């Protein structure tokens, strides 16, 4: 069952309080981010739950969740590599980095490794053009990517996941 912890509920209340009385729908994008942090992706059940929290119709949540690119509408790997491929990154070698990641992980763009560890996505400009090629991984950016750096990132992820288990 989808249910936020008391800590997350306090956060939801804090977010809603930023907006005028009766305008709690404004909290939708931040609360969806919060839900995704907890569950990794947004199932219909999660979206319905968010609707109930904000006292809005489920459709109001669906139409927002499907509009913005950061909300995952299906499960993704533990680590998601979102590699920028727009002009400035392309002229700085992003195609080669994407190919390298594909080969290293043995998956194509939009796919997840069978062990559920990694998902590879290509994305459009993330505002790191001077530090290209780059990708987003969770909350942070990994910039100035080289094959060696990609190897290191993959190894670090595996290590971190091993420690957690």
């Amino acid at each position, binding site marked *: 069952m989808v249910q936020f912890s008391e800590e997350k509920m306090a956060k939801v209340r804090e977010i809603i309080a930023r907006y005028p009385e009766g305008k709690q729908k404004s909290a939708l994008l931040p609360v969806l981010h919060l839900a995704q942090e907890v569950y990794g992706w947004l199932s219909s059940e999660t979206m319905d739950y968010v609707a109930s929290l904000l006292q809005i119709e489920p459709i109001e949540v669906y139409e927002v969740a499907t*509009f913005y690119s950061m909300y995952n509408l299906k499960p993704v790997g533990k680590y998601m590599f979102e590699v920028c491929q727009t*002009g400035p990154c392309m002229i700085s070698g992003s195609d080669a980095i994407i190919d390298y990641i594909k080969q290293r992980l043995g998956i194509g763009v939009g796919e997840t490794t069978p062990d559920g560890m990694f998902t590879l996505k290509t994305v*459009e400009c993330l505002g790191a053009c001077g530090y290209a090629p780059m990708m987003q991984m969770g909350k942070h950016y990994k910039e100035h990517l080289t094959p060696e750096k990609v190897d290191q990132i993959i190894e670090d992820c595996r290590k971190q996941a091993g420690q957690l288990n």
Partner: protein
Amino acid sequence: MGVKLLLEKAQVEGIRSYEVYRREGGYRAAEKALKTMAPDAVTEEVKKSGLRGRGGAGFPAGMKWSFLAKPEGIPRHLVCNADESEPGTFKDRYLMEFLPHLLIEGLLISSYALGSNATYIYIRGEYAWIPDILEQAIGEAKANGWLGKNILGTGFDCEIYVQRGGGAYICGEETALIESLEGKRGNPRIKPPFPAVKGVWDRPTVVNNVETLAAVVPIINMGGDEYAKIGVGRSTGTKLISACGNINKPGVFEIDMTISVEEFIYSDEYCGGIKNGKRLKACIPGGSSVPILPANLLLKTAKGETRYMNYESLSDGGFATGSMMGSGGFIVLDEDQCVVKNTYTLARFYRHESCGQCSPCREGTGWMEKILKNIDSGKGKMSDIDLLWDIQRKIEGNTICPLGDAAAWPVAAAIRHFRDEFEWHVKNPQECVTRNYGLAHYADPLEVVG
């Protein structure tokens, strides 16, 4: 070294913290504005400064402020547009990451001028680590009496909140941003009514870019007249330029708008020249939506005069032979780059980011992407080039918001200046996938430099 008004203290150790920022003269402008100036006098200084919106449109900020409706009993809001998403642009990120208190101080002064008691920073969702930095700064400012109730005993109340977007370029357009702030899809609104009359929650709203609001701090410190003396003509003050692509020193630079484009690219103080000793082929000087220029037209205008890094000079010659200052996203392409491929990636970007409301943009961006992909991969026809031209012309000016124009301009400019490169792709379908066209004869900077 040029004048630095925004990034002067960026390298000071610990400048992110309140103590260091304050010790370095921070919040002096806020003190001056709130204690010694009436709100309208603050707006007057911003008008006098000639400050133009730094997000891309370049509209005079003081004038925008003076349009704000002030009906009795209805709250007004200032919204800071931190949805920086124009390819090539990463200057606001730099300001927020390294000088968060400069933005908070600018927001406080501007909120005071506009009478906003609840001010929102709408930041692109992908900059996921920056809200923590901003919220830390907001907390410190509040703890030191710069935010909250009855600030400095003036009776003015102000809270600043940070809201993350969900990943959508279109939310950089102010009415789409407002929709998103209300928890909706980022579909731009039809204007009028303008946000200054009916903005967020139907209340009068001013939306300004991060850099614009940060610039209010030096304007109040030095006075609008002094600020206007920096720069040239209607390009007053300093501008942040984020430079990227095939250059030796990509990064964020603050310039006073009197330096030439040539100096900006080749001087060690700025881009440090083209990487790996290559030659300059082309440049998109103001973010991906402004026209790309071949090297010869970039460094000199069509009249043969030196081109400068300011609003007027970059647009000299109109779209026929000039470009725009835009958001200050300076993208440099060396002789090895393919203009067709670069244009294709930008067309793909705009197709991905079109909100889908207006048919010319929704359909046109998809068509442009497909045709460019074909040409780039050696599957294009000669008639495709004219078809592309035709499509971009039918998008431009026929949409609710400027995304349509932003998608059309890069395609138009690429064909205008690099038509022979497009034709070469069509005529050499096999060769074009294995090698690039190279430096076109008209784009040789050595003919114009020195």
